[in-house]
């Protein structure tokens, strides 16, 4: 188990490095001198040279990368080009909004999608199964940014039920919650359908297994068979899917944050890319990648916890 975790963290470090290296090279291919962007077009050549030397901009890309990694390990992700505030502080400020959005989005998708798939599988061919089938395909097919715009138009502008932009008054939980509803609905909707389909398919497979017949032959209650036996096995592949789904949600959240003007990580990276605010982009991508790797690791550990066969092979 410890060796397994050791391996996984090693692998995670390699992935983070590769992503950052790729990002670094790409940022430096974008036209525009970061020093000029930071100091303004009227900056003197001396000021630019001084700034470039301070930010190591005059050194080879690979060296810059090493500097960045060196300080990142110490918890220093550089400074915002414009405000000179530490990047870590800015990310910490915005991380909460993104986390709330992504977790709420996936949360409601799981709470609705898994029971839907489960019920559809228990009675295949019933009206509920058919409706779930149509609903799944429909919600998977519509991109989340379209759902965001439609939801915004309908619930905020036409019906005026929910606020349109921002993340709500700091400290006012109810207000923040009301600002969370629409974007979380938008990014989670496709996942409801996706999870319902997945759970339905794996439940149908498990319900045909001999050990389910055994449970029925021992006269167990149907409820116990579905929830305690079948779902317990059928949920395992879904957990992997949910873990990987967080990666997709990070990008869906970018759209939602732009459309609803939520001050999250996604919007931050988007703005920083347009402003050539490289330290923010680098810091943001590092955090997003790390978050994704962490979620996948958690989902794998969760499966190991639920499935003794996996546990004993770790």
């Amino acid at each position, binding site marked *: 188990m410890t060796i397994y975790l050791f391996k996984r963290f090693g692998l995670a470090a390699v992935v983070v490095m590769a992503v950052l290296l790729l990002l670094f090279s790409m940022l430096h291919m974008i036209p525009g001198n970061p020093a000029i962007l930071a100091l303004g077009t009227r900056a003197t050549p001396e000021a630019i040279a001084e700034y470039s030397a301070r930010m190591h901009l005059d050194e080879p890309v690979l060296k810059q990368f090493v500097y960045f990694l060196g300080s990142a390990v110490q918890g220093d992700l550089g400074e915002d080009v414009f405000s000179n505030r530490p990047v870590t502080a800015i990310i910490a400020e915005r991380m909460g909004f993104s986390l709330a959005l992504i977790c709420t989005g996936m949360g409601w998708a799981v709470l609705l999608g898994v029971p839907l798939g489960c019920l559809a599988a228990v009675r295949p061919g019933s009206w509920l199964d058919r409706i779930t089938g149509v609903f799944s395909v429909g919600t998977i097919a519509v991109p989340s940014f379209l759902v965001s715009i439609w939801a915004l138009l309908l619930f905020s502008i036409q019906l005026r039920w929910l606020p349109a932009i921002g993340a709500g008054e700091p400290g006012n939980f109810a207000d923040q919650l009301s600002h969370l509803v629409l974007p979380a609905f938008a990014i989670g909707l496709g996942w409801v359908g996706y999870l319902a389909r997945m759970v339905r398919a794996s439940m149908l497979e498990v319900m045909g297994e001999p*050990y389910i017949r055994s449970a*029925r032959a021992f006269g*167990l209650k149907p409820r116990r068979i579905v929830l305690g036996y079948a779902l*317990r096995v059928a949920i395992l592949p879904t957990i992997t899917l949910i873990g990987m789904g967080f990666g997709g949600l990070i990008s869906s959240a970018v759209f939602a944050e732009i459309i609803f003007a939520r001050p999250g990580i996604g919007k931050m990276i988007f703005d920083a890319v347009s402003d050539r605010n490289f330290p923010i982009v680098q810091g943001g991508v590092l955090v997003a990648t790390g978050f994704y790797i962490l979620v996948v690791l958690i989902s794998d550990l969760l499966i190991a916890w639920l*499935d*003794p066969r996996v546990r004993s092979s770790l």
Partner: protein
Amino acid sequence: MKDLANNTLLNIEGLTLDFLTNRGRVKALRDIAFPVRKGRILGIVGESGSGKSTVLWSILGLLAGNAQVTAGRVDYGDKNLLTLNAEGLRALRGEEISVVFQDPMTSQIPVLPYAQQMSDILYRRSMSEADKRKAAVDMLRRVGIPDPESRVDAYPHEFSGGMRQRAGIAMSMLTGPNLLLADEPTTALDVTMEAQMIDLMRGLRDDFETTIVVVSHNLGLIAEMCDDVVVMYAGEVVETGEVHDIFHNARHPYTRALLECDPARITDVSRKLPVIPGDIPDLTASLSGCIFASRCQKALPACSTTAPPLVERGTGIARCHLLEGPLADPSWPPPAEVSTVMRDTGKTLEASVKDAKPLLEVRDLNVQFRTMGAMKSRLRGVERPFVDAVLDVSLDIRPSETLALVGESGSGKTTLGRTILNLQDAAGGSVRFEGNDIRNMSERRFKPLRRDLAMMFQDPVGSLSPRKSVRALITEPLLIHGAEGRNLDFEAERLADMVRLPRGFLSRYPHELSGGQARRVGVARALALNPRLIVADEPTAGLDVSVQGEILNLMADLQEEHGLSYLIITHNLPVVRHIADRIAIMYLGRIVEEGPAAEVFARPAHPYTRALVEGVPQPDPDRRRQNTGTIKGEVPSLLRRPKGCDFATRCPLARDACREAKPEHRQIAPDHRHACLFPLRYADQQIT
């Protein structure tokens, strides 16, 4: 039949059932009727497609969704189980009627420990969790699980096959049911385990006064275990009776034929096995007359048009025209010695192969499997992070010779076969084919040799691509090795003829084939390139008794015609007795005994060989073993290979010396060797 009233626990009457499939209505059961007598063990015996398991599931109301009961009743006490509502059935299941399943590997949920699974079964009892746990531990102890207090928390995958089936039996006996249904309870187990399970179930019947219904295709198991027998064929009961009557005085031609096909009953070792020609009739068609008429050696023209009479006799019934009515034949049934089945009288092969130069020579072959990664083993300081799946194996196979490699699961026999065919890398030793070392050869250099060395895979249907026609499948090897302008249609027909597969089958797909036909396709594929040696992995696994003779006879014929050599890998001793020239017995990756087939059977030197030979239940209730437990326990894990003789942990004759060092191979005759410090001796044997 007569005194139904008091001693009948369950009575099936006129049970008729169809499966609605896209091929139409399959008339799976027709007018099934028999009583189950209290406190007895009833066996339902039949081949695949006989509907024996369907009868079992209809008792529990657990039929597949497309099943439709059209007539009949299943009376249990004052209830008709076929019309009982779902709640009523659920109240009986697990409490009064319980089941032992065929495959303990798939019938127990992998993610719950036994303690949980067993306390779930007791959910209707108002017992505390601690009491439920105690009941589970007690029952696990009763079925022979060592250290049940801690093993009750184990998960199924932590148990070996035999232990799982013991736990499965414990689960079904937990509530003390009146009726225990056992569906092929030993089919997934090794021979040495089978004997232990039969013992266990008979013991439980005596202790708990449980009535048992056991469904099996295994005549030995039925003879050894049952009091009453029901013989089924193609969805009908053809004969019932007490076990002695069925095995010594069978009156239905099918029962007679089935018994005579069992290789364990055939004492004279000829190379030809009896068969029941033909296939089970198509149950979607309209059926008339006797269902067995199309395959019956005694059939008269009227048999296929007029339904046979139901004849009551001593202890049961039989449905046959020969017994009663206008077609009655006073000479039927003939005495037991007179054969009633088809028997090829091909000449037996002369034992002239003895002195020929070996085609294949295996010397000190070792195969190892890694048990943990390089980093893990270094961190933990494990010196040998691998197990020996094959350990110092030496074998010869001569031209036109059949060597049978026999062992239980986990003995390494399949690994050895794969290594010989260069499908698995070896760690040491040599494999010589016609004098050239072929071990660990690169696939590019080995490819020409694949023409000479062919493989017949274990799963006849699973090893065929479902998307290819039989024609494409049997010519595939030719294409891989360059057809060189050969006429593939001609080749396909030539191969189909060779394996006696009707040419019309060439355009069929694997799912349209029966087990025996799929096996023939496998033989044709192996033969396509005119090989010298065929490695056949369990060639008769999954085949019915009446069909396995056909495949073995075909293999023997092909050997005669083409001078083939066979390496047959199997756990089925009775079968190899008829086809093998020599037998090598494997245990934990080592050959423990090797010698001429007849000699190994008659005078096994190694106690393990004797246990295997005696472990096969005899299809004769008069030869029931009083104490089947000659050897106990199971094959140990390769991870815990004993220090001394590998078999010492289970050997009834083991002494201290056996636990000290691995015995060397010793020659007791020019062609017979063993690895035992204290071999068994026989009165008529010269001690050398």
